[in-house]
């Protein structure tokens, strides 16, 4: 009798779940062709900056579940809107300032599977690899399970862990949650997932796939369908044909061992224009910074960029194997792109940039001074992430925990310039590449190029910049007799450190090879740029490592200038992007150490300079 009662109860629950789906279908659909502006109160023809996170994992991700995460997609969206959710470590997480947009991007492969394995009533729980899954205890045990599962997923038997019913239910819940929380004019969500492909040697080829509308394919295209990202693009092309517009955003190229931006296709052939077209049709953006490090550039690639050594994460993802530098960083890829354009007429690496967190807690990863990291119970304690010494030294004498968490970084953010906060407006900004990335603070950056721009100090230079020039992410064609000017403008995060210097990073193809230059273009505190070195003087901003306080009264609230390239040559292919640096502040590891009453670790940077990067503007030569 009791058993029968339970079955009825389960059926009722299933019934309740399908009721929930009905709700999602009633949500007004976002029409992809309707460009009529919605009259939201902050609609702005000169566009507003919106901040969000396009890389968020919840309990449905196989790894997040092992890490102890119980936050659902609903919880994740509630958190982004300012709600409180509980970390598996037992503390509450809340944002000081809610985000404007958010996308839950769970790993499509084995979506919901691990959760099902831990439930003794499911078939998946009977699988040998599920042994012990329902009783995960400490971090060590969890990490052991994570490694065991990762290893199993690399065997021919990986399909055994796929239960289509579990997969479908999880995906439907993710789609429904995104549609339920989308609130045009106030808060934007996206139907999204992560395509989690890796090479034989753990070369990271991961992408997040973001859909424009509220409709989703029956199931995502996952790494089980193919480990070849070109198959993903083919599938996306097919979906687009059916009216399901989407784009893919690669991330952690730093951990790809040179595979993400290599100059060969997946099969090992040289790149061609068909490859470039397909890649750019599907991948207009790249995630340049996140918890697992920053992929802008590397000191070995950019020896003349003194700020290239920023949150470098040197390993392949989920390993401590070194990741080769060439082919793994965005700036080098952008440069190879224009070189290919000049030599062969196509550019497969014409990316705009965003940042995001890659949190596996459902919750954006927190700021440097409030870092809860991203893998649940594996790294929620300073000792576990290697910022504070172990109670007892390791067997090999090491004072800190082994592993890669120390090289991780407190979150990145995605910024866009859009007319208003709606799915359509923000997605279209992704397509235009009118996007920027920050290492966490809500720094706003504007970047335009044109031959007829108004002076930066004129009353409102933005409408004219849109009319006569191009914003970040755009293309400009050189003119024979006039040099373009750049409008470069950054505004601080009101609740973070002031700005130190404004920079333009230039790449050009000269004598058949791409070269890069970093220009300081505006300095804080009245500093003058040295015309030889193109550098601002030191503004004297310092951090007190006793308590992380920063110099008072130093730094700028805004930095802006109209800039012209002193080495401009209208016959060259070139690209330019801006970067702005904050005054130095404590890195999360220093905050951890100070709060624990120990010395910050000497082999880690005690301070960082938070920053923002714009998407590039490409200039084609005068014909």
């Amino acid at each position, binding site marked *: 009798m009791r058993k029968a*009662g339970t079955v009825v*109860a389960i*059926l009722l629950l*299933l019934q309740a779940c399908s009721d929930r789906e009905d709700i999602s279908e009633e949500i007004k659909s976002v029409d992809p062709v309707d460009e009529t502006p919605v009259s939201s109160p902050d609609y702005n023809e000169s566009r507003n*900056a919106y901040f969000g996170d396009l890389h968020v994992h919840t309990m449905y991700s196989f790894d997040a579940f092992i890490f102890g995460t119980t936050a659902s997609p609903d919880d994740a969206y509630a958190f982004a809107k300012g709600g409180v959710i509980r970390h598996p470590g037992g503390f509450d997480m809340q944002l000081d*300032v809610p985000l404007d947009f958010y996308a839950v991007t769970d790993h499509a492969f084995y979506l919901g599977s691990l959760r099902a394995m831990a439930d003794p009533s499911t*078939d998946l729980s009977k699988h040998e690899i599920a042994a012990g899954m329902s*009783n995960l205890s400490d971090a060590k045990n969890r990490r052991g399970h994570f490694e065991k599962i990762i290893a199993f997923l690399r065997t021919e038997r990986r399909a055994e862990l796929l239960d289509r019913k579990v997969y479908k239910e999880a995906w439907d819940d993710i789609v429904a949650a995104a549609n339920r929380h989308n609130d045009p004019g106030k808060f934007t969500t996206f139907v999204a997932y992560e395509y989690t492909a890796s090479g034989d040697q753990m070369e990271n080829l991961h992408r997040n796939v973001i859909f424009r509308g509220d409709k989703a394919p029956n199931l995502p295209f996952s790494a089980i369908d193919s480990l070849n990202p070109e198959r993903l693009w083919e599938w996306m092309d097919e979906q687009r044909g059916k009216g399901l517009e989407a784009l893919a955003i690669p991330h952690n190229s730093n951990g790809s061992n040179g595979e993400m931006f290599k100059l060969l296709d997946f099969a090992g052939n040289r790149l061609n224009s068909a490859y470039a077209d397909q890649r750019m049709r599907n991948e207009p953006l790249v995630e340049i910074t996140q918890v697992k490090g920053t992929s802008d550039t590397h000191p070995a690639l950019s020896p003349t960029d003194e700020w290239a050594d920023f949150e470098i994460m040197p390993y392949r993802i989920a390993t401590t194997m070194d990741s080769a530098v060439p082919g793994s960083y965005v700036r080098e890829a952008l440069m190879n792109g224009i070189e290919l354009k000049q030599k062969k007429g196509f550019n497969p690496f014409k990316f705009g940039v965003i940042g995001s967190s890659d949190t596996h807690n459902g919750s954006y990863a927190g700021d440097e001074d409030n870092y809860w990291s991203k893998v649940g119970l594996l790294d929620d304690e300073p000792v576990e992430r290697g910022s504070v010494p172990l109670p007892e030294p390791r067997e090999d004498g090491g004072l800190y925990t082994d592993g890669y968490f120390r090289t991780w970084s407190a979150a990145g953010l995605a910024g866009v310039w859009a007319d208003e906060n709606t799915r359509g407006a923000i997605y279209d900004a992704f397509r235009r590449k009118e996007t920027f990335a920050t290492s966490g603070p809500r720094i706003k950056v504007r970047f335009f190029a044109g031959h007829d721009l108004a002076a930066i100090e004129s009353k409102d230079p933005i409408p004219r910049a849109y009319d006569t020039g191009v914003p970040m992410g755009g293309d400009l064609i050189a003119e024979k007799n006039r040099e373009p000017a750049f409008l470069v403008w950054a505004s601080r995060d009101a609740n973070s450190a002031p700005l130190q210097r404004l920079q333009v990073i230039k790449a050009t193809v000269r004598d058949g090879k791409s070269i890069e230059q970093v220009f300081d273009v505006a300095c804080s505190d009245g500093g003058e740029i040295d015309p030889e070195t193109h550098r601002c003087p030191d503004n004297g901003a310092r951090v007190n490592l006793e308590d992380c306080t920063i110099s008072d009264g130093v730094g700028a609230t805004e930095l802006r200038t109209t800039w012209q390239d002193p080495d401009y040559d209208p016959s060259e292919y070139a690209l330019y992007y801006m970067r702005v640096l904050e005054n130095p502040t404590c890195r999360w590891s220093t905050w951890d150490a100070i709060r624990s009453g120990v010395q910050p670790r000497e082999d880690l940077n005690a301070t960082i300079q938070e920053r923002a990067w714009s998407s590039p503007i490409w200039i084609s030569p005068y014909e």
Partner: protein
Amino acid sequence: MKLLREPLIWFFAVGIILFTADDYFSRQPGRVVVDEGVRDRLNKLWQVQTGNSATPKELESLVQNWIREEVFYREALRLGLDRDDSIVRRRLVQKLGFLIEEVEEEGDQTRAVQDYYEENKANYSLPVRYSFSQIFFTDESRLAELQTKLEQGADWRGLSETSMLNSSYASRSEKEITATFGRPFTGYLYSLVQGKWVGPIKSSFGLHLVRLERILPTETTPLSYIEKRVYADYLQHRREVVTEAFYQDLLENHEIIHE
């Protein structure tokens, strides 16, 4: 017989009978009954898992599996394998949870949902929002000049220094204002006067003269707009209440000893 009125004696007598009976029956070869109920249940589970109704052959195989499982299950129970097993423990608790939730689905809940909404209006309300205009400047010595110009009726929009800040903001919550201007600025919101330039007010950017256009008081979304959401919240709340009451009820019959 005075002794027969003694509850303790009854207690022992019944205890002995139960103990003997349990011992006797558990030694008997068990009877495993496969009735319509069992077949029906197996068929339904099959449908949930595969989407199809079981063919007679499939059903027969399901029944055979079930018998096998049932026999092993009884033996496992007899050996006491269910005790001190965290999976069994968790699963049973989970099943109990389902039973409690089952109670939930009865009767018309409209009135109760309405009451729940009334009691939890704060969850369905927008915060106080401010609409204001601002003139931004960095040098405090400009204050007198700005005030004079405003008094003379100059266009206030032309008085701001260039910045990425907007000249006007419509219906922003305190949190949003803090995000844009920084914490200290938000502290001055209470000193604003409608239709009048107030300041200088300090922000993370510099100084501002601020004119409050209007305050939108906290506003509750009508139930009819968000019925489904409130109903879902209500159900969740009811589940928590019922589960807690059930727990407290059971707890009364237990003595908890911490050793």
